[in-house]
C-alpha cells in the first residue's frame, strides 16, 4: 500500500510541476487550452494528494505497522479518533496535511474565480502550483510518510499528553489558517504578474482571507485552552516560539483585512496591501519553518530535521519573488488618492495597521533573536516574558482604543467637534467605568485598568452603533425593534459582523487583563485537614484517592472550597501515572464560577508518600471570557462571510460586462 501512496505523491509532484510550467507558459503566451489544462492539473493534484492521504489514513486504521510513520505514532490499543489524529502527529503527516489543504483550497479558489476573473486566474494557477511543488518536493524527496520498515508487532503509540480531543482539532484549524493565507497571496501575485491594477483580486479573495484568518484565530484559542486545561501550568500563553509562529501571521492578516477595506472604498494603499499579504504568507511559511527545524529551543521543540534548510530556502524565494514583483509593478500601483486628514477613518485604519505590524515585527524579532544573536555573537540569547508583555501593552492598548474610534469616525476628514459629538457617550461610559473600577480596587494594575476602561469605551461605542442603526432603520421603515435589528444586520453584514468581531476581541482583552493583571496565587504543602487561602477562597485538603483507569493510575487530592463562609463544593487535582509510557501527567482541578467568569485553578504539584500534597492555587478573574470571546468571534465572522445576494449580483454585473466578445468559447 505504501507503493500507492508514494506513487500518488509522485503524481502530485508531476502535476504540480506541469501546472507551474504550463500555467506560466499559458499566461505569458495567452494560450487558452494550455491554461485550462494547467488548471485541470491543479485539480488533479488535489485528487492525487487525497489518494495519498487516504492511503495513510487506511494505514492507521488497519494498524499497518510496515509503514514507519504509522509504527512511530500509533499502536493497536489507541482509540480510533487518536489513530486518525496521529495522521498529523508527526512531521511527514503534517506536511501531507498542509499539502492536502493547499491543493483543496487552490482547486476551490480557482474553480470559483475561473469565469469572473479568467485573465487573473491564468496567473494565479502557476503561483499556487509553485507552492504545491515546494511542499510535494519535501514529501517525495526529503520526508516521506510512506517509508517502510519491517513491521513490528505493535507501534510506539501516541504520547499520552497528545491523547486528548484538542489534538484532533487544534492542528487542523491552525493549518486551515496557515495554508489559507496562500490564496490571497497567490491572487495578489497573480494580479501583479498580470499587470492588473483593478481590485478583482481583493474581491475574489475576501472570503478566503476571512476564513483563513478565523481558522487561525480559533486554532490559537484552542491551543491556549489546551495549554490551560491539559498542560496546566496556570497560564494559556507562554510566548513560546511556536505559539508566536501562529500569532505573527494572524496579526499581519488582521492588518490586511482592514487595509483592503480602504482600498475598496478609496482606492488607496495598493502597494501597502500587496506587501501586507506577502508578509502574512511569508510569516506563515516562516512560522512553519520555525516549528519544524528545531532551530529555536522551545517547549514544542522538534528534532533538528532535514527540512529546515529547505523551508528556509522556500521562505527566501517567496520573499524575493514578492519584493521583485512589487518593485516591478510599482508605477502601476501608485494612485492619486491621498490621505486628506490625519483625523479620518482612513488614518485610523492606517494607525491600526501600523500598530498591528509593529506588534507582529517585535514578536518576530523576539522569536528570531536567539538565532540572530547566535549567528552574530556566537551565543544564543533568549528574550523573556517581560519583553513581550511590554510590547503587547504598548501596541495593544492603543489598538483596543482604535477599535472603538475607527468605525465611528468619518471618512476623508472628521472635525474635532464632530468627533466629540460622536464619542461623548462612549467616553462618558468609559470614564465612569474606570472610576467605578478604581473604587473596586482595579487601580492595583495600571495597564489592567486602562484595558478595562478602553474596553468599556469600545463596547459602549458598539452598542451605540447597533442602537443608532436600528433607530435609523425604524425611522425609515417603521419596523418593530427586532425586525429592524435583524434587517439592519442582514443588509450590512460586513459592517455589523465586524462589530461583533470587535466585541469578541474586547471580551478577549477583558479576559486577558483580568486573568493576568488581577490574578492571585498561593502555594504550600498541606497535610490532610489543613487549609490554604487564596484571594477570597479557602481550600481545605480532605482526602487522597487512587484509582486504576484505562491506561493510567489516577491519583486525586480532594479539596473543599469555601468563599466568604459559603460552601462551594469540592475540587480535585492530581496526577495520572501512565505505566506503559512511564510518564506522569498533571491533572489540574478547575472550578469555574459562571457568574463572575473567574476560575479557581488548583495544581497538585507534589504528592508525598505520607499523603501530604504541595498545592499551587491560582484565582484567575474573568478568564472564561477568553473562551466566550472565541464563540463570539466565530459568530461575527460567520455574519461577515454570509453571502449577500444583492452584492453578488452587483459584482457579477460589473465583471461579466468586462468585455466578452460574442465568439469567445466558454472556458
Amino acid at each position, binding site marked *: 500500500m505504501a507503493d500507492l501512496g508514494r506513487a500518488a505523491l509522485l503524481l502530485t509532484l508531476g502535476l504540480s510541476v506541469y501546472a507551474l510550467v504550463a500555467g506560466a507558459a499559458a499566461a505569458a503566451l495567452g494560450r487558452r487550452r494550455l491554461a485550462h489544462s494547467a488548471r485541470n492539473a491543479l485539480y488533479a493534484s488535489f485528487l492525487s494528494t487525497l489518494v495519498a492521504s487516504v492511503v495513510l489514513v487506511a494505514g492507521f486504521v488497519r494498524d499497518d505497522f510496515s509503514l*514507519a510513520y504509522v*509504527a*512511530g*505514532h500509533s499502536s493497536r490499543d489507541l482509540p480510533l479518533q487518536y489513530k486518525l489524529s496521529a495522521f498529523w*502527529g*508527526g*512531521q511527514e503527516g*503534517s506536511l501531507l496535511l498542509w499539502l492536502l489543504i493547499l491543493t483543496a483550497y487552490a482547486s476551490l479558489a480557482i474553480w470559483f474565480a475561473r469565469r469572473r476573473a479568467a485573465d487573473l486566474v491564468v496567473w494565479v494557477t502557476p503561483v499556487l502550483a509553485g507552492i504545491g511543488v515546494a511542499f510535494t518536493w519535501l514529501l517525495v524527496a526529503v520526508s516521506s510518510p510512506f517509508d517502510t520498515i519491517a513491521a513490528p508487532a505493535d507501534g*510506539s*503509540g501516541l*504520547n499520552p*499528553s*497528545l491523547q486528548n480531543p484538542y489534538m484532533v482539532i487544534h492542528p487542523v484549524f491552525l493549518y486551515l489558517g496557515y495554508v489559507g493565507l496562500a490564496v490571497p497571496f497567490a491572487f495578489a501575485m497573480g494580479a501583479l504578474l498580470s499587470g492588473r491594477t483593478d481590485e478583482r483580486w481583493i474581491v475574489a479573495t475576501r472570503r478566503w482571507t476571512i476564513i483563513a484568518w478565523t481558522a487561525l484565530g480559533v486554532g490559537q484559542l484552542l491551543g491556549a485552552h489546551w495549554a490551560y486545561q491539559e498542560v496546566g*501550568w496556570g497560564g494559556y500563553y507562554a510566548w513560546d516560539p511556536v505559539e508566536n509562529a501562529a500569532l505573527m501571521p494572524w496579526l499581519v492578516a488582521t492588518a490586511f483585512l482592514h487595509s483592503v477595506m480602504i482600498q475598496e472604498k478609496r482606492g*488607496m494603499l495598493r502597494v501597502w496591501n500587496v506587501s501586507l499579504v506577502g508578509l502574512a504568507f511569508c510569516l506563515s511559511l516562516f512560522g512553519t519553518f520555525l516549528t*519544524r527545524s528545531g532551530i529555536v*529551543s522551545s*517547549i*514544542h*521543540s*522538534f*528534532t533538528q*530535521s532535514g527540512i529546515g534548510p529547505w523551508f528556509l530556502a522556500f521562505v527566501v524565494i517567496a520573499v524575493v519573488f514578492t519584493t521583485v514583483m512589487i518593485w516591478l509593478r510599482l508605477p502601476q500601483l*501608485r494612485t*492619486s488618492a*491621498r*490621505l*486628506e*486628514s*490625519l483625523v479620518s477613518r482612513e*488614518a485610523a485604519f*492606517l*494607525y491600526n495597521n*501600523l500598530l498591528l505590524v*509593529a506588534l507582529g515585527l*517585535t514578536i518576530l*524579532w523576539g522569536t528570531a*533573536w*536567539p538565532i540572530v*544573536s547566535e549567528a552574530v555573537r556566537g*551565543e*544564543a*540569547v*533568549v*528574550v*523573556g516574558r517581560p*519583553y513581550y508583555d*511590554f*510590547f503587547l501593552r504598548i501596541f495593544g492598548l492603543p489598538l483596543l482604543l482604535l477599535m472603538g474610534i475607527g468605525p465611528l469616525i468619518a471618512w476623508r476628514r472628521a472635525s474635532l467637534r464632530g468627533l466629540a459629538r460622536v464619542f461623548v457617550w462612549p467616553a462618558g461610559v468609559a470614564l465612569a467605568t474606570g472610576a467605578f473600577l478604581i473604587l473596586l480596587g482595579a487601580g492595583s494594575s495600571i495597564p489592567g485598568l486602562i484595558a478595562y476602561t478602553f474596553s468599556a469605551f469600545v463596547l459602549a461605542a458598539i452598542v451605540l452603533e447597533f442602537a443608532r442603526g436600528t433607530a435609523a432603520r425604524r425611522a425609515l421603515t417603521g419596523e418593530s425593534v427586532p425586525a429592524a435589528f435583524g434587517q439592519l444586520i442582514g443588509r450590512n453584514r460586513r459592517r455589523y459582523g465586524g462589530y461583533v468581531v470587535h466585541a469578541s476581541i474586547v471580551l478577549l482583552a477583558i479576559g486577558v487583563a483580568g486573568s493576568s493583571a488581577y490574578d492571585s496565587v498561593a502555594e504550600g*504543602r498541606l497535610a490532610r485537614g489543613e487549609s490554604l487561602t487564596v484571594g477570597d477562597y479557602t481550600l481545605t485538603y480532605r482526602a487522597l484517592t487512587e484509582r486504576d483507569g484505562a491506561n493510567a493510575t489516577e491519583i486525586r487530592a480532594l479539596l473543599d472550597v469555601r468563599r466568604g463562609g459559603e460552601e462551594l463544593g469540592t475540587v480535585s487535582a492530581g*496526577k495520572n501515572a501512565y505505566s506503559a*509510557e*512511564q*510518564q506522569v*501527567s*498533571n491533572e489540574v482541578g478547575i472550578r469555574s464560577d459562571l457568574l463572575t467568569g473567574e476560575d479557581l485553578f488548583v*495544581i497538585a*504539584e*507534589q504528592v508525598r508518600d505520607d499523603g501530604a500534597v504541595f498545592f*499551587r492555587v491560582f484565582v484567575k478573574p474573568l478568564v472564561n471570557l477568553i473562551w466566550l470571546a472565541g464563540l463570539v468571534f466565530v459568530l461575527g465572522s460567520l455574519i461577515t462571510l454570509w453571502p449577500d445576494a444583492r452584492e453578488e449580483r452587483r459584482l457579477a454585473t460589473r465583471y461579466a460586462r468586462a468585455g466578452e466578445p460574442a465568439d469567445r468559447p466558454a472556458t
Partner: protein
Amino acid sequence: MARSSSPARLVVALSVAAVLAVFLLYTSLAGGGTPSVAPSELDGKTGEVSLVGRVVGTPSGDPHGEGLRFTLEDIEGKQKERVTVIYKGSVPDLFRTGRDLVVTGTRHGDGTFVTTPGSMITKCPSKYQAADSAA
C-alpha cells in the same frame, strides 16, 4: 504623484521612528535577554543564563523543600560536561531522566547551578519523532 509629501508618508515615517525609539529604549533599559548556554559553556559566565541540557542520573531532593538536585549534561557535542542543578519551584510533568530541558539561573562558586524558582521548561518529547521504544 505630483502632490508633495502627503500626510500618509509623514505618518508612516514618524510611526516607524517612534516604534524604533520605543524598542531601543526598552532593550537598553531592560537588557537584551538571557544567554542560552549548555553545561560545557558555563565556565566564566556570571549573571543569569538559560541552561539547556539533558537530565542524567537520578534526581533527588524536594523541589518544594531544600531543592531538587539533578545533573544536566550537554545534549550534543563531543565534549559533554555535567553540572549539578539545584531547583526549587514547580516541576513540569515531563521531567525525568533523559529529558531535555531549559532552566534559568546562575552558577555559584561551588560549581552548582542555582535556579530561579519555577523557571524549568521541559521539551515536549517525541512529538514529531518516533518515541524511543521501551524508553
